[in-house]
């Protein structure tokens, strides 16, 4: 299994509070991704990173920001959490071949 961890694994927060999720990898892979999974939607890309300090938006980026200051860490921040951001969040990484992504265990977030 690819060395990917996510923290926290579970979080309950209130509407309007900031939340940061962390993805940590030990594979030294260049590409990292944040997805959310919701019933009836499959996996949708939020943001991705193609190197340290290099990030770009995905399909559902509104309300989210990311940062990558080290190769091994990719942070996802909800600036002001809303109930619509209640979801399961997955981090993924890819190296060579780039086409295959490997996923972390997920973070279950509940926004009340």
């Amino acid at each position: 299994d690819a060395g990917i961890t996510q923290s926290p694994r579970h979080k309950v927060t209130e509407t309007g509070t900031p939340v940061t999720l962390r993805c940590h990898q030990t594979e030294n892979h260049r590409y990292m991704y944040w997805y959310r999974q919701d019933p009836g939607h499959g996996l949708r890309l939020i943001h991705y990173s193609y190197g340290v300090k290099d990030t770009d938006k995905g399909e559902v980026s509104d309300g989210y920001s990311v940062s990558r200051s080290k190769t091994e860490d990719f942070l996802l921040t909800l600036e002001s959490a809303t109930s619509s951001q209640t979801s399961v969040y997955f981090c993924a990484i890819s190296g060579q071949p780039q086409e295959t992504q490997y996923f972390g265990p997920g973070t279950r977030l509940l926004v009340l």
Partner: protein
Amino acid sequence: DQQVKQNSPSLSVQEGRISILNCDYTNSMFDYFLWYKKYPAEGPTFLISISSIKDKNEDGRFTVFLNKSAKHLSLHIVPSQPGDSAVYFCAAGGSYSGAGSYQLTFGKGTKLSVIP
């Protein structure tokens, strides 16, 4: 607009029989296809992939077939085992962003139940 469709939300199969999971796509630029398996409370696990230059790829009990003219791929599991019970996601990719990142588009998943 859904570019990758898994039209069957669920599938039940008897242990030992063949499981066939289907996936359709609309974007003719897709050139690489993957299947992932997901157990509850875990992350998706890569299962098998196929490039558009092939029409079949096999790995043990798992075989993926690609029909480019029909824009259709399928995953065959033979024989099916109770441990195969999971949600299966089809994914497709075919474009690199300006930064060189390869994007995948996922279907909504099919829940497979293998009955002992």
